[in-house]
């Protein structure tokens, strides 16, 4: 009886299931390398993956509307490169101002995405693919075969230095804001409504276009913020920064149970998904998986988690159905 309720508990909610997977992963890794659960390591997991975790929130909103944004790391590079150059040549040296500039750049990039997708009715993957090239290219243009690193960004990098709490505060603040926004605000409910059934949403008086523009703008804003954080944490602004990482962000959402077809997903799930991705990145080098095989192992873990997730959801659906039949 007790066992049954345990299974019920972990299959009852996606978040509980993910949490269970996390614990199993944690135990396995700790057996393989006992140093894994040190405070230093845990801190590094959040610091090194703050970017993925923050951008996953934006991606959650975008995917709730059945969209996708693959231009995020290009936006990140464009924003990061711009502030890198600004501080390298001592044009702007205030950390706060640099963060704001990066966020404004990201916001404008996202706004353009949103307008073209909502008003121009362009498929999100196509539109953001275009901008993926454009913003990445702009990062190179802005950099003009220079990069900012080490000494150039010394002051700015103080913010993200190992041992400071800045990145953690930003991370916690983002999650708090999005948790409240998606759960308890009108805007949050609109996003879910647009994603589950756009026609129904429109008939019930929701401005679908505006909601779409908003979610891509939010995504851009977060990508810009992540750009600033990236420069600060790694003390390096290069045009190719975080290249290809948008897939980690999408993977975090998918693992976290966000549906690609919209309308389903939660902040808690996204957080756990992003945490799983982060732990994979941190743990693989620690448990002696050979460097050249790490990406393969990562892919396998992602698939296994998602499949496990899907199977249990089917079980839940079936249980619910049976209950209804009775």
């Amino acid at each position, binding site marked *: 009886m007790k066992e049954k309720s345990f299974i019920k508990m972990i299959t009852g909610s996606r978040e509980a299931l993910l949490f269970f997977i996390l614990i199993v992963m944690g135990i396995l890794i700790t057996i393989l*390398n006992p*140093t894994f659960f*040190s405070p*230093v*390591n845990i801190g*590094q997991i959040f610091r*090194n993956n703050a*970017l993925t975790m923050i951008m996953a929130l934006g991606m959650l909103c975008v995917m709730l509307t059945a969209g996708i944004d693959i231009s995020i790391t290009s936006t990140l590079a464009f924003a990061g*490169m*711009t502030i890198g*150059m*600004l501080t*390298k*040549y001592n*044009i702007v040296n205030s950390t706060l101002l640099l963060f704001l500039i990066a966020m*404004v*750049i990201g916001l*404008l*990039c996202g*706004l*353009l995405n949103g*307008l073209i997708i909502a*008003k121009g009715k362009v498929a999100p993957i196509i539109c953001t693919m275009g901008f993926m090239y454009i913003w990445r290219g*702009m990062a190179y*243009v*802005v*950099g*003009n*075969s*220079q*990069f900012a*690193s*080490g*000494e*150039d960004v*010394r002051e700015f990098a103080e913010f993200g*230095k*190992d*041992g400071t709490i800045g990145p953690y505060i930003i991370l916690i603040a983002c999650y708090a804001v999005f948790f409240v926004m998606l759960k308890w605000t009108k805007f949050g409910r609109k996003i879910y409504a647009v994603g589950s059934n756009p026609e129904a949403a429109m008939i019930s008086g929701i401005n679908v276009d505006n909601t779409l523009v908003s979610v891509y703008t939010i995504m851009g804003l977060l990508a810009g913020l992540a750009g600033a954080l*990236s420069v600060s944490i*790694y*003390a*390096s602004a*290069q045009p190719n*920064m*975080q*290249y290809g*990482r948008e897939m980690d962000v999408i993977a975090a959402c998918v693992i976290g149970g966000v549906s690609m077809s919209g309308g389903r997903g939660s902040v808690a799930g996204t957080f756990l998904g992003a945490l799983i991705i982060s732990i994979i*990145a*941190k743990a693989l*080098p*620690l448990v*002696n998986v050979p*460097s*050249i095989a790490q990406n393969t192992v990562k892919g396998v873990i992602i698939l296994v988690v998602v499949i496990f997730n899907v199977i249990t959801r089917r079980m839940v659906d079936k249980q619910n159905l049976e209950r209804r039949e009775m």
Partner: protein
Amino acid sequence: MKRKVVSILLSAAMTAVLLAGCGGSSASTETAAPAAEPAPAAEAAPAEEAAPAEEAAPAEEAAPAEEAAPAEEAAPAAGGSDVSGKTFAIVVKSAGNPYFKKAIEGFTEVIEGNGGTVVVKEPSAATVDAQITEIQSLISQGVDSISVAANDENALQATLEEAMAAGIKVNCFDSKVNADSRLTFCNQAGTTEVGQALIDAVLDLSGGEGQYAILSATSQATNQNAWIEAMKSIQEGDAKYSKLELVEVAYGDDEPQKSTDQAQALLSKYPDLKVICAPTTVGIAAAAKVLQDQKSSVKLTGLGLPSEMAEYIGNDDAHSCPYMFLWNPSDLAKLAAYSSIALVNGEIKGEVGDTFTAGDMGEYTLTDAGDGGSEIILGPPFQFNPDNIAEWKDVY
């Protein structure tokens, strides 16, 4: 009405983006200023070299004279390295790159010091098309020699063959073209030299014994793999390295985030680790930051860009990297200039085994490049340490 709002918004956004773009480019125009600054500092070094250069000149005349005696090249050899009336072109990868600015300075100094004329071509973009256009204009201009840092190994072949057919001596430096497109290649660093410098640095920083790890780029990176292999074979071949233990070769894929993860993993996996050696610019910068932020006692060396590494280079505990290596673009271009002179004067033909004297830089032999052509190896990589980093960090 709504449309209007949208179009206003769009244009506002675009203007903002443009402005942002402008902000960036106006920022980059200032590159000129910092890049120009190191000139006096750098001149100090050539100034020292100038004296031996004069001394070396007669020696240079003597050497080729002996070799070239039977050939009709005796006549130019008698004139030594004097190349008055000859024109030497240098084609770099792109304009506005501080690394090549330094190279052009070195090249010009040698050619003009020997009485020749220099033509500098800096393509506006780092593309092979732009280089082809520049080289074609050099062919019609009728220069005597072209030294090129190629943007592509094969795409310049047709143009460079045309140049050689027109009697122009073609060599390359920094980035080579294929063996058919060149007479010789000035290679910034031979594999063995890099491996030797790195393993010696590891030996020195570890105090002669202990564990070290390598943080490389990708597992398929040709250069890095060759250097790592060289390090391993040198270590095996000499008993003085026998107390060093290579615990792991980690790959950070030349990505700051992954390199950071890998460097942190090395630290927690090997508590007795003494040295990390990162023969890649992204890896060394990421590892330097990890070590320095954590105030780790592990020391770092490898290959890195001075501008990126200045923050981390120092002899005290507050800095993670006591010294590291890369090549000197100015010396590389000087070697290219001397080999161009030797080619134009007929002292060398670009064949393996040819020797020539590169002014005060000493005697160089053309060796097999392994691609069917010859190369000239500049020598051991240049060491950047706390004494010279301030001078170099603004250069590249």
